[in-house]
């Protein structure tokens, strides 16, 4: 833990219960990175509004103050804009009869302000648990056992609790739940649910809220007044999804988490929703996280991509680069396993084996080794080091070996050293 000079020391009991010693090398690697980028200071600064790659940024920057009535808590963040999020060393464990098992382990992930990040993973990859952790909403028997989630303007969400946390959800973090199509109350109109939301967040001017909601719905191509008057069953799947997005954004959250936003939607509706996500993201100046099992969704919508497997992020980087030339064998296999419209059908291959479940995730070594064709002896025992090339990070022994052979990058060496050290430390303990 002392390897995080920029962070406050985590709560002692967290540290004590942390099973994360073995993943130190990976983290030392990444923490070094985040230190370098030095985002936290940058974010608070006034220069932020000048972000060039954000179309519609300038008009939007005035918006929150304009929309919120005076005296609103919103006023406290006049410059509230796309926040950055830094997840570091995050571990979430679930209590089971077999003891506490990690669903998510030692995740380091950064959401760059104003970008869309896509997290891809199969069932059991921990992607939904990760999404819930951003709101500190992991339900028992699960709990966040280590790490931090720093959100600009909010601090470490993991340490928030009670009312502060409740307020943060909705006002700072908008969450569109998995199967948002079915998460509306069937007995109440959308408008009523909107007012409930407003009241529970102590919005003074509910009329303003309704106007905002209508505007948002209109922006997404719907008749706002009509939708607010409708019950859930009167709306199609795509429309409900849009209502979900509206409810996540209407309190002016600038960090939005969408969990499987297009699951169970038709292709054409999916394309529409993805387009809307992209457009709203740009217009309102958001930081967006999209969680999905579908690589296609991420490819369409995300600027950056993180691939999860067995509770770890195995590869992350700019979407175009990662998809164009994936380096982790899992990413490669996943892309090859997706039926495509063009190219030779014969090239497509299913990945052998099956994704691990909570109980079958290997406790040591690489989580993907069971299904990996590049598996080596070291994969059984050692956590794969994180190799970074610019923003692109891969956690794989095979890639590490290759990189070393290529000419020995300094950071790889550092990673291996760290790993050896951590291993030694663990041995002493045992």
């Amino acid at each position, binding site marked *: 833990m002392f390897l995080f000079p920029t962070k406050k020391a985590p709560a002692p009991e967290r540290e004590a219960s942390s099973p994360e010693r073995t993943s130190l090398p990976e983290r030392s690697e990444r923490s070094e990175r985040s230190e370098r980028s030095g985002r936290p200071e940058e974010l608070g600064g006034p220069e932020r509004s000048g972000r060039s790659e954000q179309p519609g940024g300038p008009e939007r920057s005035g918006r929150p103050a304009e929309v919120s009535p005076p005296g609103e808590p919103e006023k406290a963040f006049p410059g509230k804009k796309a926040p950055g999020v830094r997840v570091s060393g995050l571990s979430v464990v679930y209590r089971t009869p077999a003891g506490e098992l990690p669903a998510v382990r030692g995740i380091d992930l950064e959401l760059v302000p104003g970008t869309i990040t896509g997290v891809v993973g199969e069932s059991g990859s921990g992607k939904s648990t990760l999404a819930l952790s951003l709101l500190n909403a992991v339900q028992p028997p699960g709990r966040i056992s280590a790490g931090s989630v720093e959100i600009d303007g909010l601090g470490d969400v993991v340490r928030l609790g009670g009312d502060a946390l409740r307020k943060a959800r909705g006002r700072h973090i908008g969450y569109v739940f998995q199967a948002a199509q079915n998460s509306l109350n069937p007995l109440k109109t959308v408008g009523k649910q909107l007012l409930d939301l407003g009241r529970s967040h102590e919005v003074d001017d509910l009329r303003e809220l309704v106007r905002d909601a209508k505007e948002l719905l209109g922006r997404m191509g719907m008749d706002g007044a009509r939708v607010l008057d409708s019950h859930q069953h009167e709306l199609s799947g795509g429309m409900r999804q849009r209502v979900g997005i509206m409810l996540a954004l209407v309190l002016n959250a600038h960090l939005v988490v969408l969990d499987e936003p297009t699951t169970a939607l038709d292709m054409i509706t999916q394309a529409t929703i993805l387009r809307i996500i992209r457009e709203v993201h740009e217009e309102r100046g958001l930081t967006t996280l999209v969680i999905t099992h*579908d690589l296609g969704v991420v490819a369409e919508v995300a600027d950056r991509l993180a691939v999860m497997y067995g509770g770890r992020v195995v590869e992350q980087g700019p979407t175009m680069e990662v998809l164009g030339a994936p380096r982790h064998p899992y990413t490669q296999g996943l892309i090859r396993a997706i039926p495509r419209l063009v190219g030779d059908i014969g090239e497509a291959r299913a990945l052998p084996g099956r994704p691990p479940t909570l109980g079958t995730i290997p406790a040591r070594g690489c989580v993907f080794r069971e299904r990996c064709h590049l598996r080596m002896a070291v994969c059984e025992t050692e956590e794969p080091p994180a190799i970074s090339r610019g923003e692109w990070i891969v956690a794989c022994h095979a890639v590490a070996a290759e990189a070393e052979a290529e000419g020995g990058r300094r950071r790889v060496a550092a990673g291996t050293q760290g790993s050896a050290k951590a291993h030694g430390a663990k041995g002493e303990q045992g």
Partner: protein
Amino acid sequence: MITGQGITKTFRQRGSVLAGREVKALRGVDFAIKKGGAASFIGESGSGKTTLGRIIAGLESHDAGEITIDGTPMSSLRPKQRQPYFRRIQLIHQDPYSALNPTRTVHQTLNAPLDLRAKGTGRSRSWVEGRAEELLELVGLDPGYVLPRYPHQLSGGMRQRVVIARALTVDPEMLVADEAVSMIDVSLRLGILALLKDLRERLGVSVLFITHDVATARYIGEDGELYVIYRGQVVERGHVETIISDPVHPYTQSLLSAIPVLRGLEQPGEEPVVPTEALDEGNHDAGCLFARRCPFRTGRCESEHPVLGHAEGTSQEHACFHPRRRSVVAMPAGRA
């Protein structure tokens, strides 16, 4: 050989007589699936493709039209007599979780239909046991591992394989796979598709694939036939590869345009077609059914109803007054 002519189905929504609303699920669909052939029904939810699949599997009745199985028109038979015919057509459900009885082991699940057959043909118990193992091996499962287990102890992919093995217990002529991979982990989907393809090649089982994802339909077989269904009507029909490379109906083009592009690997097609938003078109039946969403509609589309017919000089059929090829499908990025 299984054919259907003019299959029509209307659902009457329950409720009071006054509020009863009719939903036309199928409006006179023709199809023909050869022995050992492959066909795919493509369309959005609500297009009627699932209803059609269920009618073909004998699980649902239809209002008008004729289903002919191996030359025998089903309307000439009484319901009891139809059963052996429809037994040759087995439905693979979308959801392998609900398709297997959670209180029964795989062994029990497979043995029930096998016992029935053994009784009918005077085969022995050991034949049943042997056949169950054989079928599990055929679908790529280890019988020793799978047989004593309950469905919840298997992964989604394994469950779907058990479902397929169960369908094979009656030596079916055709498997109707209704979105059979949509609830399975991405990395395992192709395995199930490959299995269906393999069964077709090795056992000569024809496969009818029902999906909203055109890309998966490609994997069942290149010689497969594609039916694009919109609101209960076939709007385009032809060989899989032809329709993917040269779609002429704007709806087919919309479907193909909507498939996500793997940026970095591929680049989007040149003329993607984006349909206009569908708003209460459910009751709008005059003219072309797609007219209200079609970006290329003309006055004629609003008043006249296009019928499925051959396009000039091609093998595919379409129901559009203004057919035009558009390159909508993503292309490999110019790497390498």
